[in-house]
């Protein structure tokens, strides 16, 4: 948490830790730089283990301190051994990081909690974001808890529940006629003209750090070691890049032993610009116009696309995509085998996991962690037409025996 300042990832120029996000010289992304001199792995492990049951147990490696009155306590979600899904896929060492268990039921609470604490430091009063749905949810809830005004921007046409579960916290919800990429450009322009805290724009260096906790927790939950492979759903690619950074920081500080984690990115075929570049063996990610039921991943021009490609290649991972049909099948498979109901983003993850396991790209011995980052309840549309209809009976034993018993295999 001892922050030195911000540093440009591309040219190395340093800036004070303010609400800025691009380098003035080269437009490169700014990153938080910590003063970690003298931090020792063992002592850090102890401090973490004694910390709160939330992302704030990793406060030493986050850019801002926890604000107790504003804390919705995100993170420290279960890491589940997936026996039945592992059996189905031939992966005996499969784990699921169940990040649906967050205050607003997605991993976005992690990044937003950090952004909000940074926003407080900078004295902002309006809290905003450009969102594919879940981020808006998290921003609205956190702003409510902090007593700040929230104005959230989403593309028109999101799932009904995602809009309602955001609106209930009483932000101003702004539906933009366009795609997420339009929303994102608009928010970049707004950030240039108005002093608003836009979580994933001018607070991005801080916001993005929150996603490292997805790696920290997995390493801690595995008994202070990294997995062999992670499978991560990718929209902008921020979470993917920061999960890698999280493992890397733990290794560098001696919190866990050194090991290469095969970084595996999952995209929907209807919005797979990084998967396309990966397969074409180029390093240029060309933007696409999204068309997929995985709306939370529908980002046609992913900000971190080039970094995702780079990491997938350099770690021996992969970038793979699945069709909407495969996404829906995977959502149901996960529900039926593990009792976990994810939104389509998780279907993308499990669909890709399944595809790579079937092709042998993921070896059966690998300790693999699949990140389930959002809950199914917010996207009922994805499955409402494919789940089995209920059976209706009269309240009599005869009706039960006639219509139900056989179905239960009894």
């Amino acid at each position: 948490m001892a922050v030195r300042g911000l540093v440009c990832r591309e040219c190395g120029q340093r800036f004070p830790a303010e609400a800025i996000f691009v380098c003035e010289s080269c437009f490169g992304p700014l990153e938080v730089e910590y003063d970690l001199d003298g931090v020792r792995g063992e002592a850090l492990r102890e401090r973490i283990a004694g910390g709160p049951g939330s992302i704030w147990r990793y406060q030493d490696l986050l850019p801002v301190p926890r604000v107790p009155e504003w804390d919705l306590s995100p993170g420290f979600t279960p890491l589940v051994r997936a026996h039945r899904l592992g059996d189905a896929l031939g992966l005996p060492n499969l784990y699921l990081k169940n990040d649906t268990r967050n205050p607003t039921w997605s991993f976005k609470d992690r990044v937003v909690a950090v952004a909000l604490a940074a926003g407080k430091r900078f004295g902002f009063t309006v809290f905003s974001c450009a969102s594919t749905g879940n981020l808006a949810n998290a921003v609205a809830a956190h702003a409510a808890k902090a007593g700040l005004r929230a104005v959230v921007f989403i593309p028109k046409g999101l799932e009904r529940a995602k809009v309602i579960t955001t609106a209930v916290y009483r932000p101003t919800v702004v539906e933009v006629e366009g795609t997420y990429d339009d929303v994102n450009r608009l928010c970049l322009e707004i950030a240039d003209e108005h002093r608003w805290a836009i979580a994933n724009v001018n607070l991005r260096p801080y916001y993005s750090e929150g996603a490292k906790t997805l790696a920290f927790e997995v390493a801690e939950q595995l008994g202070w070691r990294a997995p062999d492979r992670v499978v991560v759903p990718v929209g902008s690619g921020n979470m993917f890049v920061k999960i890698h950074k999280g493992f890397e920081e733990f290794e560098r500080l001696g919190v866990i032993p050194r090991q290469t984690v095969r970084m595996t990115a999952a995209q929907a075929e209807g919005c797979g610009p990084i998967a396309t570049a990966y397969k074409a063996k180029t390093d240029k990610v060309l933007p696409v116009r999204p068309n997929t039921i995985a709306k939370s991943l529908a980002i046609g021009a992913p900000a971190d696309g080039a970094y995702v490609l780079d990491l997938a290649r350099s770690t021996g991972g992969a970038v793979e995509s699945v069709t909407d049909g495969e996404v829906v099948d995977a959502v149901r498979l996960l529900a039926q085998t593990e009792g976990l109901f994810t939104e389509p983003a998780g279907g993308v993850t499990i669909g890709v996991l399944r595809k790579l396991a079937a092709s042998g790209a993921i070896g059966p011995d690998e300790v693999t962690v699949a990140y389930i980052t959002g809950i199914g309840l917010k996207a009922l549309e994805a499955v409402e037409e494919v789940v089995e209809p209920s059976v209706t009976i009269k309240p009599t034993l005869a009706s039960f025996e006639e219509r139900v018993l056989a179905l239960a295999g009894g």
Partner: protein
Amino acid sequence: MAVTVRIPTPLRRITNGERVVTVSGRDLAQALIDLDRRFPGIRAKILDDRGEVLQFVNIFVNEQDVRFLAGLQTPLEDGAEVSIVPAMAGGAQA
């Protein structure tokens, strides 16, 4: 063709604080040349040595990403709005 160019914060030092600048050009490439004539050095912040748009810069014409149009050859109608926007990556390998 007179077109407007929206200047993002990191480049406003070069434009003496001006946020929106009117330039002329029949396509995006020409408009950027005219912009550079008025504010020398600004083009080098947007394009690389080979004249391609830098990795961390996105350019929009009338709200359309020019990568979906004709890139720097995108024609500009009179009154077109050009927006220069940071591509905004946020990751690192430490």
